């Protein structure tokens, strides 16, 4: 909101404060100053009225004049060079003396131009900051006295503050409201505008009002409606001072009556509406809900279609005003208006807000009504406007005031003790200071020892609890005076949420494995999701009100975003090839959505590399090794669940070169690793291969307390190793065979000694192996807890194992 310093001067004397001090005060009161504007002539030092005594041509420059100018009648005239041509000897002009600074930082020094000296400068309007004209000098009318500081010749300069007023403070959407705050802050007196009409002595009889009456059909939306009648006004432009005030705060002057209603709105915060009485059909005002589909052409010349939630001020025939929002062209005060009905009302804030939103129409009036105007302020504002109308537009008030409803009740008494405020603040100040602040804000304070009863004024609907008063006190006491203190806290044994620490571990690990962390938006397009995750039901992932067509759905995977990152960097040739992201994704299962923690990584292997040395490429097993670490950090048991190969159907991962493990419903997590399909890689314009992995975990799965680890003793004796190669179906997973072999070996060894490990050390297909088969070679490591194993006992077990394999499996032992 714009606040004019000149205007403010009507209610508080701020002449001893600089603009900067006032701006600081406003900031510290909670009204953030977003901009400070100067209008009119800025304050200029050493710029005075001078008179041109003579004008000669510069001997060496045709365009320049050499003038003698007097700026002090008791002193010698100054020599001045001037490039303008619009002035004559005898004219009075502003002269910037040596040592002055003009707007824009232009410093005036004694200078010399082509051999002629110049002391000071005669100024154009532009140089003075008074307009665009820079061709000629500013010729001063009315013979102002020579030597007068220029600001005295142009007294109408003003400072305008653009303030952010928070939604809890509608009382400060006015000059008086801001004046009250500054008065309390600076400890100054606040001067209310004086009413000429004594509200206590209004006639109840006399010439009748201009309307028969006001009927309020929606008292819940309009608790209080006041109408005054004024007859015989003369519509004309407003006086200069009023136009000046309005222009300073970016309002366009229209005519005296409309300007006065706007002035009072900006002075007191109470919106008013002036009707041309002769345009009120049936001499009757009806405050009612609009009919469904009823239309009105508002003052901005737009037809508005109303609905029954909206309140209108109507006459007997038609709606005249969207209540509290905007009037219509129909009942506008214009140059022919002579009789006026002035409305001052209190409307239900949520209703006005809803109407304003629905119509997409916000006005100074709706802005205030929807935040809540002073429930007791309607009459004062109306009388203030009547005073001004009679003063500027003539006319006389006729008939009794017509009031329908009553001022909403605002009595609030807050019980509070000064100690409560000190306790919340955490530092000390005397009771007297609290009392002073509350009273400066026009709260009534009644004290009995430590038990205070505080009654805030009617316009402070935001004050109803002790905490609210504590805030008021600290605000005026000065939040910049909160004393410094050390951080003092008791110890708490609590740890980070499992998701947070897992995210930290994952991202550090991947960054240390040479992956660059990326962050993508988590909203993606429907096209993309349906194309690559077609098996999911998209509907539960759709936003009700997306803002961009490519950000309509919650992401289901981190992979597309990472592909975006690779594509973007490829296009810009930045050399980025390894990326990862940690973030939340969303999965749908049976039309219910799960929010999941996810980590994904990708490695791009371009077709053409530029490295001077060839390296073995990142492959499936590299991805597997990374996933092993990620899963381990999350406490997931991938090994016991076991990978399955991706068998087509999936649309990102290449069949035969990718694998997945876990299911959301059974295991609380899922993971995929492997090579992305060419189709995917192509879609993202990547020429090469992309491998990677993605892990998705139900957050609740994390942080299950594993308890303390109990140490298991381990053997101090050497192991004995045996190798065994099996010929098996090529479609079999090595892990399946390995597990089976391990199980049999343990059975055969029985309690004699342990099979410590079975591991694959060779996979072979080709010569010597039948088609459709492969050879898997295993290394078996045996160990006993209490002795060094002998060849004999190991040999026995090993040969028994071979017999068992031959007898009970389809595998053949390869020799």
């Amino acid at each position, binding site marked *: 909101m714009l606040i004019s310093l000149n205007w403010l001067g009507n209610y508080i004397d701020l002449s001893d404060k600089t603009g900067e001090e006032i701006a600081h005060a406003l900031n510290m009161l909670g009204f953030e100053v977003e901009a400070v504007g100067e209008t009119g002539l800025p304050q200029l030092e050493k710029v005075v009225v001078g008179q041109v005594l003579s004008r000669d041509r510069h001997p060496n420059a045709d365009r320049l004049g050499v003038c003698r100018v007097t700026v002090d009648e008791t002193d010698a005239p100054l020599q001045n060079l001037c490039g303008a041509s619009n002035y004559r000897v005898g004219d009075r002009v502003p002269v910037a003396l040596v040592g002055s600074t003009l707007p824009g930082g232009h410093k005036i020094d004694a200078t010399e131009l082509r051999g002629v000296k110049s002391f000071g400068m005669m100024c154009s309007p532009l140089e003075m900051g008074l307009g665009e004209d820079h061709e000629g000098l500013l010729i001063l009318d009315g013979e102002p006295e020579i030597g007068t500081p220029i600001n005295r010749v142009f007294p109408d300069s003003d400072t305008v503050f653009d303030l952010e007023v928070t939604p809890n403070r509608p009382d400060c959407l006015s000059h008086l409201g801001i004046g009250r705050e500054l008065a309390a802050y600076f400890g100054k007196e606040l001067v209310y505008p004086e009413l000429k009409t004594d509200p206590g002595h209004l006639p109840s009889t006399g010439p009748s009002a201009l309307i028969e009456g006001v009927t309020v059909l929606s008292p819940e939306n309009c608790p209080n409606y006041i109408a005054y009648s004024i007859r015989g006004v003369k519509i004309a432009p407003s006086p200069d001072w009023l136009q000046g005030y309005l222009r300073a705060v970016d309002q366009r002057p229209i005519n005296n009556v409309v300007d006065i209603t706007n002035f009072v709105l900006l002075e007191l915060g109470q919106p008013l509406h002036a009707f041309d009485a002769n345009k009120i059909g049936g001499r009757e005002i009806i405050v009612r809900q609009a009919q469904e589909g009823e239309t009105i052409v508002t003052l901005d010349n737009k037809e508005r279609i109303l609905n029954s939630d909206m309140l209108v001020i109507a006459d007997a025939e038609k709606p005249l005003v969207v209540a509290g929002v905007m009037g219509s062209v129909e009942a506008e005060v214009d140059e022919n208006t002579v009789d006026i009905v002035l409305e001052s009302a209190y409307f239900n804030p949520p209703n006005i807000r809803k109407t304003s939103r629905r119509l997409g129409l916000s006005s100074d009036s709706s802005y205030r009504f929807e935040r809540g105007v002073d429930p007791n302020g309607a009459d004062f504002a109306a009388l203030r406007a009547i005073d001004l109308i009679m003063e500027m537009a003539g006319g006389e008030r006729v008939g009794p005031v017509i009031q329908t409803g009553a001022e909403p009740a605002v009595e609030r008494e807050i019980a509070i003790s000064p100690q409560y405020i000190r306790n919340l603040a955490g530092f000390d100040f005397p009771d007297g200071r609290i009392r002073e602040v509350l009273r400066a804000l026009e709260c009534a304070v009644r004290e009995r020892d430590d038990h205070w009863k505080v009654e805030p004024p009617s316009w402070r609907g935001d004050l109803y609890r002790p905490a609210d008063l504590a805030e008021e006190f600290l605000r005026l006491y000065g939040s910049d005076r909160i004393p410094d203190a050390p951080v003092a806290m008791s110890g708490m044994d609590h740890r980070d949420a499992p998701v947070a620490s897992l995210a*930290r571990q994952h991202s550090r690990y991947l960054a240390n494995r040479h992956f660059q962390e990326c962050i993508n938006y988590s909203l993606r397009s429907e096209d993309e999701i349906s194309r690559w995750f077609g098996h999911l039901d998209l509907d539960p992932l759709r936003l009700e009100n997306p803002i961009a067509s490519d950000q309509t759905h919650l992401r289901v995977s981190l992979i597309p975003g990472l592909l975006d990152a690779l594509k973007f960097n490829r296009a810009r040739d930045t050399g980025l090839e390894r990326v990862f992201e940690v973030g939340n994704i969303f999965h749908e299962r049976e039309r219910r959505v799960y929010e999941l923690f996810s980590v994904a990584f990708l490695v791009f292997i371009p077709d053409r590399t530029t490295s001077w040395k060839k390296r073995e490429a990142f492959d499936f097993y590299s991805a597997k090794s990374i996933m092993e670490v990620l899963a381990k950090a999350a406490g997931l048991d991938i090994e016991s669940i076991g990978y399955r190969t991706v068998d087509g159907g999936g649309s990102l991962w290449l069949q035969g070169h990718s694998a997945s493990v876990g299911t959301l419903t059974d295991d609380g997590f899922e993971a995929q690793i492997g090579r992305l399909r060419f189709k995917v890689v192509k879609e993202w314009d990547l020429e090469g291969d992309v491998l990677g992995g993605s892990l998705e975990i139900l957050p609740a799965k994390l942080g299950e307390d594993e308890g303390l680890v109990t140490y298991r003793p381990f053997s101090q004796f050497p192991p004995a190793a045996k190798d065994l190669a099996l010929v098996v179906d090529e479609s079999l997973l090595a892990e399946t065979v390995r597990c089976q072999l391990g199980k049999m070996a343990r059975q055969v060894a029985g309690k004699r000694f342990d099979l410590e490990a079975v591991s694959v050390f060779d996979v072979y297909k080709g010569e010597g192996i039948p088609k459709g088969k492969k050879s898997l070679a295993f290394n078996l490591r045996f160990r006993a807890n209490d002795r060094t194993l002998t060849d004999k006992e190991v040999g026995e077990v090993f040969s028994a194992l071979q017999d068992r394999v031959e007898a009970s499996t389809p595998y053949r032992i390869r020799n």
Partner: protein
Amino acid sequence: MEDTLKALISEAEEGIPAVRTRPEFEAFKARYVGPHGSLTRAMRGIKQVPREDKPRIGKLLNRTKKRLEEVFEVCLGAIEDGEQAAKWGEAIDPSLPSPDPPPGNLHPLTQVREEINRILKSVGFAVADGPEVDTEYFCFDALNTPEDHPARDEQDTFYLPAQAKFANVNKFSEERYLLRTHTSTVQIRTMLRQRPPVRIISPGRCYRRDTTDATHSASFTQVEGLYVDKGVTVRDLKAVLDFLFKSLFGSDTRSRFRPHFFPYTEPSYEMDASSAHLKKVGKEWVELGGCGMVDPNVFAAVGYDPEVYSGYAFGFGIERCAMILYGIDDIRYFYQNDYRFLRQFGHPVSC
């Protein structure tokens, strides 16, 4: 005898450079310790040495033998080095770059988030977590934000369809799901779960229905702090934020509270900071975020007695913080993933 042995050693030492291959080495060795080697012969000669000289000569022979073994070791080492180097091909050029990928980095937003976490953890906060899709109750109602508050409007907040069902995000009653507009939702969920004292920070993604430009993003990251206990004061709030900002922006940092309004705190403040570093951004005071004392209505919603407990809360944008810290002028860079941007923030391990 003595002279013979001395000559033998110096001869062997002088012979080292000439021994380049294993056969040469064997021959070289045989010359001294082979069956006809000179040392072997000398050893045999001990029999002729007079009895009283034997201990001295014996010692001398041993020393000579030891010295010869050292010479052989040197020869063999040089041969092995040569063989090994030959096996590995040409000598390296230490100035050539490694063909392996360059070091990875954490995203600057992660780094700033972790730095804030680190600082606040050092004074006893722990990180709490909650869902990004939350409900109107946890995002607004429980935070004293009335039904008709502008922030709740569909203009400003992303909603999910009324029929949407989230399996692992519980509702309070029949309210709608939305994308959280702040991580204060985590505060509510935490307070509903545990009794005071509560001392948490909640970093995370938030969403506002803003059109993306240089300073706005529909998706952004926030960190919020909450401390509820007996006797928590405004002064404590100021103290913890002073500590945070000094740690983050340098020990010369001053901070300032400006009164403001938030539905969930009373009193409420906007917090500004000022430091030599921040002045480079061009302003005396830089606005960082909001804070205040937890509103009694919020306590009522989570069943804490405002007569017994008080608390403070604060929150600010991590993007904004990072922009100020690093002098970044466009918020979109954080989500563009341009490596030339990301790799400028390279401290993957330290934070």
